[in-house]
């Protein structure tokens, strides 16, 4: 279950602390890993920026896997009587596609941005719990690999991503796929929970001087709301997953109607988690575009407090709408009415945000850079998805729509058109910050337009398909039953499949762009402040040194960086640039902080995380292996506890110029 920080330390000693060690001695089994530039540094790192990049790379890897799965589905449906996948493979494909996209791509990609940018945006040198942060990343990676290892061990999960009973029972799904699914998600759940605690404490407690809550960038705000949602939603799915594991592996009958159980129990637990989950996926992207739009409109965000508070309101109301996923399950008229109302209510704070973005652009000096284009596409596409969402909130309409392609259209408009486009906006916006190079504009344009066209060609027709009654999760269609004229299902299925390959090409162009940007000799180093940005993360070198800021800035405004560059002319209300970014930084760093302690690297996070899949395989195959895994956990916790979080010989202090580790004092902002 949840690995808590506190027990970790203590459990260990019970394992038998070697006695007679002087307290001042370096503790731990391994020699403390020192800073280096080799690949090993990535394994032992506790630097939130490196972990952010690792989250990003791993999540993108899973994005490609999930994408291939999606294309196989569309290939199967491109023509009547598709032969690409048989029924069983088709079930596995859509289940694993959805699971991968939700849990292994969108969530961790948001975690990637949160990890990298939240400390920078609030002016912190690190996160609150660096080793736990590393542990969370490894849990995500190992959980994801564990889940996908099912492909080689008898096939993936096949009960749909919400895994309703009775499809989840061993009777209907005898392979181990669903066992891998439950345990794998349990492991990634640990990643989310530890990550949530870490990020919330970081945001509440590690803000630099003057960084009041209402001066934090909106991205940080949205991350805060998201992490609260995770903090409280993950335990709910944890319960559900445990119950399912106990049913499948230990003979309980929690969801077995024949034994008198209520299959709705699962549906409730899943959606109590599941609806907050959809906000967990979208809010970070809302945060990203709320950074991007003001920068490229050259205006402050319209109604900053409203945007922040409507985010919090969504986080709150998001808990009271879960049963709208169950309108067709026989909840009873009162429940349906209540949840229908609350669902309509939640559209309000969402709509408020859209208004705010539009008002920000209104009258602004817009520049249509690639990040801005993705952000605008998000607004448009999310609005379409939100509107179809409101149509499901009307319960009588939803009973027609549910389990049809109309639902598929809805959630892809919000998830792909919204969440994923927001993430791409973030890639293009923050790439120069993370890697000192700007992604190529021409390839970026192709990337963008192919994605927009592909996305709308794929999911637009699905509205029609759904309203015409094509059920979701349908493995084949036949010409005979496809209908006539404009509503010919075959025609729209073909369009959707063509669209999906367009979309796939668009995504691949992003990879091409990355390779081009980093391999081509022609790409110049990006300027310090390529977009004329507004928030703190741009007020340090690119990429930031390990300790983020040579001098922790004192904040006196929302959009601090902007206010240091520009001054308002009180008579004309115009703004004039008074300092360049380089000057701002030189001023800030005139007297660099001394004695910067950074947390030391550690082997233990990866070791502890790697014992979790061992337990997982144990649950599925062999009880002894479970015990081995538990033993490993105990041992690694022991090692973790014995290791102080900063190494005693203090290899990070005082900083000596030119030495490895991120504490060198480079005064040049471009360093």
């Amino acid at each position, binding site marked *: *279950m*949840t690995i*808590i*920080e*506190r*027990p*970790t*330390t*203590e*459990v*260990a*000693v*019970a394992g038998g*602390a070697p*006695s007679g*060690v002087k*307290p001042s001695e370096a*503790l731990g089994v391994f020699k403390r890993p020192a800073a280096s530039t080799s690949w090993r540094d990535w394994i032992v790192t506790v630097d939130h920026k490196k972990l952010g990049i690792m989250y990003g790379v791993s999540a993108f890897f899973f994005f490609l896997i999930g994408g291939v799965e999606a294309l196989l589905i569309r290939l199967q449906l491109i023509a009547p009587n598709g032969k690409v996948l048989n029924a069983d493979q088709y079930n596995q494909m859509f289940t694993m596609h959805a699971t991968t996209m939700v849990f292994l791509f969108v969530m961790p990609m948001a975690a990637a941005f949160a990890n990298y940018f939240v400390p920078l945006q609030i002016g912190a*040198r690190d996160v*609150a*719990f660096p*080793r736990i942060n590393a542990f969370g990343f490894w849990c995500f990676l190992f959980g994801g690999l564990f889940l996908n290892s099912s492909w080689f061990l008898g096939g993936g999960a096949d009960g749909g991503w919400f895994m309703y009973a009775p499809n989840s029972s061993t009777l209907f799904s005898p392979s181990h796929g669903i066992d891998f699914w439950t345990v794998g998600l349990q492991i990634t759940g640990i990643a989310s*929970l530890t990550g*949530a*605690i870490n990020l*919330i*404490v970081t945001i*509440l*407690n*590690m803000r630099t*001087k003057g*960084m009041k809550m209402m001066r934090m960038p909106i991205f940080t705000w949205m991350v805060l709301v998201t992490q609260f949602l995770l*903090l*409280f*939603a*993950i*335990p*709910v799915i944890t*319960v*559900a997953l*445990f*119950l399912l594991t*106990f049913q499948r592996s*230990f003979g*309980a*009958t*929690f969801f077995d109607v024949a*034994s*008198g*159980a*209520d299959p709705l129990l699962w549906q409730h637990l899943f959606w109590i988690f599941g609806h907050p989950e959809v906000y967990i996926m979208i809010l970070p992207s809302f945060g990203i575009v709320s950074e991007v739009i003001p920068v490229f409109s050259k205006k402050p965000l319209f109604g900053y407090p409203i945007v922040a508070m409507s985010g919090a309101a969504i986080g709150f109301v998001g808990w009271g709408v879960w049963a709208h996923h169950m309108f067709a399950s026989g909840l009873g008229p009162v429940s349906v009415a209540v949840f229908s109302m609350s669902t309509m209510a939640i559209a309000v704070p969402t709509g408020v945000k859209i208004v705010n973005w539009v008002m920000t652009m209104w009258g602004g000096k817009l520049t249509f850079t690639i990040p801005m284009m993705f952000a605008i596409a998000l607004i448009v596409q999310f609005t379409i998805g939100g509107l179809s969402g409101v149509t499901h909130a009307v319960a009588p309409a939803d009973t027609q729509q549910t389990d049809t392609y109309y639902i598929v259209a809805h959630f892809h408009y919000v998830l792909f058109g919204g969440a994923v486009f927001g993430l791409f906006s973030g890639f293009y916006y923050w790439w120069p910050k993370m890697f000192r190079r700007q992604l190529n504009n021409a390839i970026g344009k192709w990337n963008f337009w192919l994605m927009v066209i592909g996305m709308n060609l794929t999911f637009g027709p699905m509205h029609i398909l759904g309203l015409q009654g094509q059920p979701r999760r349908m493995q084949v269609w036949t010409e005979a039953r496809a209908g006539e004229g404009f509503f010919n299902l075959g025609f729209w299925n073909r369009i959707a499949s063509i669209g999906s390959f367009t979309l796939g090409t668009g995504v691949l162009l992003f990879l091409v762009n990355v390779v081009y940007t980093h391999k081509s000799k022609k790409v110049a180093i990006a300027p310090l402040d390529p977009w004329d940005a507004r928030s703190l993360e741009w007020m340090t070198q690119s990429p930031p040194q390990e300790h983020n800021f040579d001098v922790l800035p004192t904040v006196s405004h929302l959009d601090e960086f902007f206010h240091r560059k520009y001054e308002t002319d009180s008579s004309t209300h115009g703004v004039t640039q008074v300092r360049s970014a380089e000057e701002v930084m030189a001023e800030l760093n005139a007297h660099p902080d001394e*004695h910067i*302690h950074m*947390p030391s690297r550690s082997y233990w996070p990866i070791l502890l995380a790697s014992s979790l899949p061992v337990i997982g395989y144990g649950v599925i195959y062999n009880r002894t292996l479970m015990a081995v895994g538990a033993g490993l956990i105990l041992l690694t916790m022991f090692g973790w*506890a*014995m*290791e*102080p*979080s*900063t190494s005693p010989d203090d290899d990070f202090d005082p900083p000596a110029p030119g030495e490895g580790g991120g504490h060198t004092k480079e005064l040049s902002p471009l360093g």
Partner: protein
Amino acid sequence: MAETAISHDHDASHGAHSSTGLSNNKLGMWMFLGSECLLFGGLISTYMLYKGRVNSGPQPNKIFDIPFTSVSSFVLLMSSLTMVLAVSAAQRKDERNMNLWLIITALLGATFVGGQVYEFTSFYREGLGFTTSLFGSSFYTLTGFHGVHVSVGIIMLMALVGMNRNNRIPGDRAEVVELIGLYWHFVDIVWIVIFTLVYLIPS
């Protein structure tokens, strides 16, 4: 937790600040406990939904031994007292009493877990296995999860005593004791709820 070490050293010597003036660890612990409310809430609701569903095997009110469970509930309740005394000793830097109370707390906890093992075995003998009925599955899942939490707490307490002997508690020792105390009390209040909802209110 060892992370405490950092923030504390910082606070003291280098003026690195914490925006709220509160300790990271304590914030993290309270958040974790808030999150645990939803975990136990889910398990309790599952039990509530299923407690009347007995297709085979004994009914809840036939099998519960209220006097016995009352005693073990009382033991767990008193372990909260000894825990808080340990915390207060730690804050006074009274090491002897701190160790003493920690050990007593662990022993009381162990008594409770022992009682639970005894209860489970006698239920099993009376015909209530994990898979006997929905009542059985949900009862064992709920109380089992709680028992695991108590056991983790016991391990932490013993480890704390051991680490303290070797002077290996990183950071602020009183805070470490306090944090484990929070966890321990939380496990106790969960039992207060379980005792009423599961045992005292008949189905």
